[in-house]
C-alpha cells in the first residue's frame, strides 16, 4: 500500500500550556477500521480533536491524503473528507433531527444529493426516520447518539472518526451501531474510532492502538491486541 490515508506523527498537544499528549503516532490506511483504546483521560479525545482541526498541535504533524493538515481549521477538514462525531453528541439542541442531519451535509449544496443521503442514513437508523421531526434535545441519550453518528455520515466522509460512540447505548444498540460501522466501512468509508468497550471495538476493527497517559504504548492488529495479556488485563477487566 502506498502512503497511508491519515498519518499522525509524534503529535504533542496541550491545553492552556499544560501538555496532555506527549508524542502520539498512528496511521490509518484506506478502507480500514482502526480503533484507539485507552483509559480515561489518556488523551484519546484530544488526539481526535486535533486530527479534526478543533485544536492545533504544539508539535508533530497530521497528514491527510498526503497533505499536512495540522493547521487546517475544523470547518475545512470536513470538506477534505474527514468527519468527526465528537464525544458527548453535540447535537444542535433546538433543531429537529432532520435539520441536524441536513446540517451534517452543510458543505453539500445540491439538495437532491442531500435528500439521497438522508434516505441512506435513515436506512441505517430507522429510529431516526420516525423521530425526524423531534427536537434533538428532547430525545433520550441513546437516540441522540444515533443522530450524531448519522449526522457525521451526511457529509459522505472518506474518513469517519467516532469518539466513544457506545457511551450510553443499550447493548443491542451497541451491537447494532458497531455493525452499522462495519457496514459503513464495507461501503468504502475508512473509520477511526475511540472506544471504551475495548472488546467490542476490537472485534470489528482491523487494527488498534493503545494509548496511555498521552503516549502510544502498543499497537497491532486487532486480533493481536485482543489476545494480548496486558490489554486484556488493563482494559477488559480479565
Amino acid at each position: 500500500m502506498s502512503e497511508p490515508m491519515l498519518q499522525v506523527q509524534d503529535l504533542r498537544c496541550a491545553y492552556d500550556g499544560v501538555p496532555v499528549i506527549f508524542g502520539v503516532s498512528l496511521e490509518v490506511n484506506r478502507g480500514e477500521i482502526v480503533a484507539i483504546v485507552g483509559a480515561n483521560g489518556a488523551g484519546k479525545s484530544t488526539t481526535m480533536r486535533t486530527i479534526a482541526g478543533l485544536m492545533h498541535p504544539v508539535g508533530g504533524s497530521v497528514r491527510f491524503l498526503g497533505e499536512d493538515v495540522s493547521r487546517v481549521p475544523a470547518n475545512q477538514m470536513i470538506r477534505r473528507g474527514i468527519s468527526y462525531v465528537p464525544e458527548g453528541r453535540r447535537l444542535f439542541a433546538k433543531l429537529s433531527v432532520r435539520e441536524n442531519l441536513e446540517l451534517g451535509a452543510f458543505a453539500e449544496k445540491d439538495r437532491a444529493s442531500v435528500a439521497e443521503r438522508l434516505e441512506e442514513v435513515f436506512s441505517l437508523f430507522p429510529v431516526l426516520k420516525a423521530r425526524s421531526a423531534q427536537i434533538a434535545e428532547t430525545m433520550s441519550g441513546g437516540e441522540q447518539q444515533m443522530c450524531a453518528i448519522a449526522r457525521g455520515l451526511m457529509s459522505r466522509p472518506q474518513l469517519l472518526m467516532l469518539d466513544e460512540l457506545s457511551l450510553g447505548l443499550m447493548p443491542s444498540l451497541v451491537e447494532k451501531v458497531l455493525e452499522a460501522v462495519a457496514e459503513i466501512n464495507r461501503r468504502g468509508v475508512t473509520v477511526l474510532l475511540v472506544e471504551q468497550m475495548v472488546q467490542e471495538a476490537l472485534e470489528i476493527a482491523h487494527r488498534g492502538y493503545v494509548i496511555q497517559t498521552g503516549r502510544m504504548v502498543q499497537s497491532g492488529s486487532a486480533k493481536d491486541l485482543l489476545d494480548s495479556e496486558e490489554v486484556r488485563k488493563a482494559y477488559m477487566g480479565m
Partner: protein
Amino acid sequence: MIRQTRRSDLLWYGFVALLAALPLVPGLIGNSFRAHVFILVLLYASMSQAWNILGGYCGQVSFGHSVFFGIGAYGAGLAVVTYGGTPWLGALLGALAASAVSVLVSYPCFKLKGHYFAIATFAIVEIFNRLFMVWDWVGGALGLDYPILPDGWKDFVWTNTKEGYYYGALGLFVLVFGVVRWIERHRLGAYLRAVREGQETAESLGVNSTVVKLAAMASSAFLAGLCGAFFVQYNFRVDPPMVMSLDMSMKFVLVTILGGVGTFLGPLLGAAVLIPLQEYTRAYLGSLGSGMDLIIFGALIILMMVKQPRGIMGILADLGVLGGRRSREKKEDEA
C-alpha cells in the same frame, strides 16, 4: 475554603499584613487628596465585596446594586436632613430596608438566567432612580443636602480632617471582608458557589437554592446599604443620579471583575487599582475637558477583558503567585 489558605498563603499573609498596617495610614498621609483616595478605595473595596457575595460567589451578576447602595444612602440622608437625627440609626434602618427591598425585587428575578437577569437588574435601577426622582419624601429630584454639623462620631461628619472617615471606611472594610471571609469558609460559601455552577445539581444535593440566593442577596444588599450610608455622610448630599444609577452599579461590577470575580481578595485588588486610576486620571487629565481620562479608563477596561478577564487575581495566578492552579480558559488560543 480550606484549600485557599494553603494555596494563596503568600497573598493571605500579605492581606493580613496590610490589615495591620492600614490603621497607621492617616498618620502618614494626613488630610490630603491621597487620604480621599484611600477612603474611596476602602469604600469601593467594601462595596464591591458586598456585590461579590451575590455576583461573584453566587454567580448572579447584578447591575442593580446601586439601588441598595442608594437606599442605605437615603436612610442616613433622611435621618440627618429630614428628621435631624443621627445617621447611625438611619444607616441601620436604610441597610435593613435595602435588604428587604432586595429580597422583594429579587425573588421574582431569580428565575431569570444569565443576561436576562442582568437586564432585569438594569430595569430595576432605572425604575428606582426615576421613582426616587419624583418621590417628594426623599427629596425628589432636588435631593437632600446636609446642614453644617459639628464634627465627630456622633453625626459621623468631619469637615477639615479625613481621619474619622478613614477609620469609618476601615471599619466598614473589616466588617464586609470579615463577613465574606466567614461565609467563604463555611457552608454558605460552598452552597453559593454550588448554586452558581449548577442550580439543579445543587438542589439534588439538598441545597435550597432559592433560600441560598435570597440569603446572598439579603446580606449583599445589607452591606451595600451600609456602604451607601457612608457615601452620603462623606458627600453631604444625596440625590438619585448620585447613588442610584447604572454608572454606580457598573463601578461595583467593574471593580470586582477587574480584581477577580468570586475571589476574596479580588474586590480589594480591583479597588486598589481602579479607584486611584479613576481619581488621578480625572484630577490630572480631566481638567483638559476632553474626556481623555475616560477614554483611557475605557481602553483599560477593554484591555483587561481582552487580556485577562479573570482580573488581577487571574494575572497573579498566571504569574504563579497563587501557586498550583493556573488559569485555564482560552481553549481556542492556538486557533
